[in-house]
Structures are given as structure tokens and as C-alpha cells.
């Protein structure tokens, strides 16, 4: 239990709305090569184990696990796939090191969503085949219902949700790998065409292609590989039911986020997350999700996130910067790699490598990812510059 685990390498590739010059495997190869270079030029033969996060239907391949090893340099090595968010994949990698059987483990994830001709149709295939799918509805009705319920229960306003979009897309202008940076006005969001009431089209993040590979190591190996290890202090993940009608707290609150964060905070010894954590990269697949997650993660009370947002608390120069990178609304949504994207931005900030968006004096950060509709699965990670 006392074994400490650090992130010692990071590489990414792609990050465009389409990537016609790269197949998904080339994209992963590029990210992996950069990651290994970042970890002192480690040879993949020296890596003990590999974890990929993927979903078959997203790749158009049954058993997508088959095509993992070659581009990672992982042939005839321990490799497995987690069909979950890439932060769950990260948890799997971390657990392997904590068992003591492995010392260095790579975790990878990618999105090649531009290859999909009908992504929304695919999301429909994740809904219940008997009770939901026969409606043959645009699946975003689930996000519309959730948003409406959340606004109703907490008194959060439609405008406050729109302000999340304004903040994140403006933050994205300082991030060269963010795709959707823009200066927009409140009316641009609130008066945009409605996707599913009250959710408008700008309340939803855009698609992004990209691949991210990170390298984890035990304490002793971490010191050999890098002089700027970022330590994983706590990790947690949880799943509520995917059935819309049997969620324990209804659709207004993100129970999965609360449970995942409880586990991560306990492991990291954090009692007051708002004071003990310096900044966060939090899932904002939809605008309301950022606020809902902030509350579920116990960073503020129910109904407070929107008000604190308006007071500038979550701005880059606020008390608790959230999604300084631009999040998914400003950067684009990486699907299964969403978690690693949140993690990557947290690591860059902690290493002091975030360029124009760099925050000052940060040593503890939180990354949180959600798997998107219709799931109720989330994972949280606490990272720190101190072991």
C-alpha cells in the first residue's frame, strides 16, 4: 500500500478535428515515441507492462485489444485493455505497480472519432436495447434531461452554464493544442439552436482526434527516469447504473463523481479539497457537467458552483482555477482518451510546462473524467509534485 507511483513520461499526438495524415496506430506510435523520449529515452523493452483503454465500437473492430501491442513496442509483453475511461486504465496501471510485480507501466488511449460516420448512432447503441433504444431518439436527450433536473434541483441558471462555455473556450485560446478556442458572448450560447432542451449546441464539446501515452513508475525507478516526477496521491473510480430510471439520486446529481472523489481524497489524505488542492481539470463534456461535477467532487456545496463561477473563482486567476486548458468545451472531446487528456493538462501545469496558461505556485491538482452519456462512470486522480 505504501508503494508510491509517479508519472514519469508523457507524449501526445494528433489533436485535430480530422487527422487524415495519421492512422490511429501511427498516431499512437507517435505519442508513445514522444512519451518514451520524455522519460529519459527509455526503450520499450524496459517497460514491464502496458494498458490501453478502448471500446470496440469506437474503433470499428471487435476485440480492439489485438491491435494494441505493435505501435507501443509491447509485442510479447504483458498488455491488456480496459474498456473504460482512460483514467480507469491509469488506475489499472497504477495497481500493477503497487502489487510489486511491475515497476514501469505505460497507459495509452486514443480517439479517432473522425473515422466514424455516425457517432450519435453509436451512442444510441450504448442505451438500453429494450426500454430506451426503441424511441430512436437523438441520444443527447439524456443530457438534456440531466441538465434540466440539475438546474431545477440546485437553482443553477441556464446563463451560468453558458458562462462555463465562455470561460473554457476563452481559456483555450492560450492552449496551442486546444481546437475550439474562441471569444463568444452569452447570447451566442443561450440563443444557439437547442439540441435537447435546455441544452444548446454550444453547450456540448466538439469531437477531437488524438492519442496520449503516459508512463508510470515506482518510486525508485521514477527517480532514475526523470527529475520531475509527478506523484499519484490518490485515485478513485465508480459507476452508477446506466439505467436512466434506476439511478439512486435521480438524474440531477453525479453520484459516480462523489464516490470516485471520496475514494481518491481518502487515499490522498485530503479532508478539505477546496483548500488542499490548487486547481482542477474537470470533465466538461457538456457545460452543466462542469458545475455538477464541481459540486459532486465536494469542491463547493450544491447550487454554489454557478455562483462561484460568476464571481470568477474558477477563472485562471481565481481562487480555484478549473479547466485552464480550455477543457473539452475549448479543447475538444477525446472520447476514451478524455481522462488522460485531463491528466495530461494537470501534469503539464504541475511540471511548469503549460506555456502561456501556466498557473503559479501549484503543487496539487485534481483530474476528473466522466465517460459520457449514457454512462454514469467517473474517475478522479489527485496529482502532486511532492511524493
Amino acid at each position, binding site marked *: 500500500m505504501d508503494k508510491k507511483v509517479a508519472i514519469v513520461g508523457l507524449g501526445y499526438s494528433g489533436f485535430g478535428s480530422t487527422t487524415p495524415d495519421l492512422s490511429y496506430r501511427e498516431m499512437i506510435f507517435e505519442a508513445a515515441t514522444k512519451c518514451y523520449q520524455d522519460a529519459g529515452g527509455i526503450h520499450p523493452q524496459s517497460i514491464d507492462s502496458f494498458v490501453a483503454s478502448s471500446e470496440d465500437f469506437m474503433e470499428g473492430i471487435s*476485440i480492439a*485489444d489485438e491491435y494494441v501491442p505493435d505501435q507501443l513496442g509491447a509485442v510479447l*509483453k504483458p498488455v491488456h485493455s*480496459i474498456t473504460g475511461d482512460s483514467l480507469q486504465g491509469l488506475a489499472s496501471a497504477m495497481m500493477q505497480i503497487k502489487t510489486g510485480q511491475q515497476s514501469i507501466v505505460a497507459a495509452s488511449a486514443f480517439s479517432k472519432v473522425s473515422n466514424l460516420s455516425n457517432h450519435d448512432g453509436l451512442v444510441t447503441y450504448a442505451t438500453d*436495447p429494450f426500454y430506451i433504444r426503441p424511441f430512436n431518439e437523438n441520444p443527447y436527450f439524456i443530457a438534456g434531461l440531466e441538465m434540466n433536473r440539475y438546474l431545477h434541483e440546485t437553482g443553477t441558471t441556464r446563463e451560468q452554464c453558458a458562462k462555463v462555455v465562455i470561460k473554457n473556450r476563452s481559456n483555450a485560446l492560450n492552449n496551442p493544442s486546444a481546437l475550439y478556442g474562441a471569444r463568444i458572448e452569452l447570447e451566442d450560447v443561450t440563443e444557439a439552436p437547442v439540441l435537447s432542451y435546455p441544452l444548446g449546441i454550444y453547450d456540448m464539446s466538439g469531437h477531437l482526434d488524438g492519442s496520449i501515452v503516459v508512463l508510470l513508475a515506482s518510486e525508485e525507478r521514477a527517480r532514475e527516469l526523470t527529475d520531475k516526477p509527478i506523484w499519484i496521491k490518490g485515485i478513485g473510480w465508480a*459507476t452508477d447504473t446506466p439505467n436512466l430510471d434506476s439511478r439512486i439520486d435521480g438524474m440531477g446529481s453525479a453520484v459516480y463523481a462523489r464516490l470516485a472523489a471520496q475514494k481518491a481524497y481518502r*487515499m490522498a489524505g485530503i479532508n478539505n479539497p477546496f483548500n488542499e488542492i490548487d486547481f482542477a481539470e474537470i470533465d466538461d463534456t457538456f457545460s452543466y457537467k462542469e458545475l455538477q461535477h464541481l459540486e459532486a467532487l465536494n469542491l463547493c456545496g450544491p447550487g454554489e458552483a454557478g455562483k462561484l463561477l460568476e464571481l470568477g473563482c474558477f477563472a485562471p486567476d481565481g481562487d480555484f482555477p478549473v479547466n485552464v486548458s480550455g477543457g473539452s468545451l475549448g479543447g475538444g472531446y477525446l472520447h476514451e482518451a478524455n481522462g488522460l487528456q485531463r491528466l495530461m493538462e494537470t501534469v503539464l501545469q504541475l511540471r511548469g510546462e503549460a506555456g502561456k496558461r501556466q498557473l503559479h505556485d501549484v503543487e496539487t491538482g485534481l483530474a476528473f473524467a466522466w465517460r459520457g452519456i449514457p454512462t454514469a462512470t467517473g474517475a478522479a486522480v489527485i496529482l502532486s509534485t511532492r511524493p
Partner: protein
Amino acid sequence: MRKVAIVGAGMTKFVRRALETPKELSYEAAKITLDSCGLTLEDVECIAHGTAPDAFDGLHQNGEYMVDGCGGWNKPTMRVYVGGGTGIHAVVHGWHHVASGLFDTCLVVCEEKMSSALPHAQAFFLTIFDSITERPLEPNLLWIFALEMNRYMERYGYTKEDMALVAVKNKLNGLKHPASQFTEEVTVEDVVNSEMMAYPVSRLDVSPVSDGAAALLLVSERVARRLTDKPVWIEGVGWSLDTAYWATRDLYYPRYTDTAARMAYEMAGIREPDKEIHIAEPYDPFGYKALHHMEGLQLSPRGKTVQLLHDGHFDIDGNLPMCPSGGLLGVGNPIAAAGTMKVCELFWQLRGEADGRQVPGNPRLGVAQSWGDLMQVSSVVVTGI
């Protein structure tokens, strides 16, 4: 390294067409497992689950859909996936949860419902091939296994009759398994004369399409001592994935099984596996595969395996009983659940609870192995008491 014990096991009957939904199958296996050690879902901290291609159920993010069936509702739940190898890999995955110190109890549940794939689950395997170089040829899974079987036979001069003997023996063992899908003995002639699928694979060389689920409860040493005086310890785990370019490999020897087994034996401190191990549950979706894997697992010298098979070395009362459960050929092959069933079998055998198929002589160490993806992955678990 933190010790991890198996304290409960359970499985549904393996059948051609279950009336239960995948969730209900998962529920049944999980419930039997918890009941077997007197626990409830409240005692379980996390779930490690597995199921093979999403295409069978026609569900995107199938792992999420399974959650409330296998007890993962409002718990840390993570699905692991290595194709056909998932069944045993889920046990490795569960071991990670407990051995890492993050959890003390982990319920491992694997489920497969293949019958909902119409007209036949085999059709969905077209989409496992490389979309540019292989899929246009419209390959079938049986074809590449036929290539592998042919190469294996040709390398050592084995005959189709030799390979058929595995199906005969495993199906005989399976008759004593209460969850088995089969009801009658077959002979070598039956197997050889059954319908030719793709030379040299005949219909009875192949394990059947099945529906079913299996589950195990893994706990830390502290919890195990409180729950039972007969814990079965996970002594070693190993897994390995070979290149996706299967056509570039010499198929006569499963290198991936070799590396995975060595990893597990190293952890378990086993130096001479063929002498130290008492029970082997190699993955046997096809007759030849059991022998192929016995060689990869270092349990039989390469090229001598058929002789040992003929000599009764692998019989229930032989020196190294192979697939005493009946394996996939004898019980059924609901892909992910079939692997977990093999670890369930080791659990029952090592505790002396395997009734009519009990291996004599108080076996103390067993190995189970599964295989999957494009003939490229092996997961190995060594258990002992």
C-alpha cells in the same frame, strides 16, 4: 507482495441458448459465489468484470450495461478485455485490485451470451480482422485456427485422430460437471467423421457456442482468514500479448503462452512446472489447442505431448490431469465465462469439492490458462493451497 485468496466460486449452467439476459446470467453467477461464502454485496468493495466482443450483444459500452447485473452498482467497477483470454485475465485484473492494497474484497464476474448473435456468433468474428489487409478476404475464425492446427500437426507428425482424442477425453470429463452442456460420450471416429468445417478442423474438434457466466470472490489474507479455513491462494499471474500480425508468426508454438507462463511461474517460485503442478486447465476451444498450450505452459515437452496423451498421463488419475472440468470442449464455451470457469474448477479441485470429477491424491497446485485475440494472447493463473 500482498497475498490474495479465492474464497468463493460460482457459475451458471452453460447452455446453447439461455432464456436469461446477460445481466441475469451475471447476477446468478455473482449471487451463487457470494452465497457460497456467506457474504452479501455489501461486503464487496469493488467489481472486476469481463465479457468478450460487444458485437454479440449489439451493445456499445457493454461493460457499463452489465454493471447492475454483476453487482457493480455504485461501486468501483472496471471491465478488462483481452478477447477470448478475458475469462482468466479478469482474475488477474481482480488480483491487481486486491494485491495493490487498494481493496480487500473484489468480486470477479465474467459473462457471455452468444446466442443473441444471429444467425451465428461466428459472423461477428469477421470484424476482428485487420480492416485493410484481411477483412476484404472475408475470413472466418475457423480458417486461421485450421492453419494453426495444420501447422502444429505437420511440425510433429500428429494425426487428426491424435487431435480428436482431446475432444473425446475432455467431453468424457465434462459429463461429470453439473454445469456441462453435453450429455453423451463421443469416440475418436465420431470426431474425425463429424462435419468438416475447414480442414483439418471438424465440428467436434470445436467447442460449442454457449451462454453462461462464472464468478469468483478474491480477498486479502486478513479477510480470508476470517472467512474460511480452506482459502485457495493465487500464487502466480502472468499474461502476454504477441504481435497483431499473426501471419508473420510460426504458428506451431504459442510464444505468448510461454512468456505468460514463465511470468506466472517466476512469481509463484515454480522451477519445474511439469513436476510441481498437479492440475492443468489449459484453454481448449479446439482439441489441438489444449496440447499446444500444454507445451507453451512447459507442462509437456514439445512434440511428445500426443504420446503422453495416449499413455493416459493427462487423465484424471494420470500424473498431470488435464482439463478435469471437461474444459471448453466438455462444459461449453461462453467465451469470457469459460476462462473463469477454469479457475472455479481449480478452486473446487484444490479444496477437494469437485465431487465425481475430483482429482485423486489431494492436489495442491494448479494452473489455468486462457487464450484469445488473433491467436495472440495468454493469461495464466497459478493457484495453490
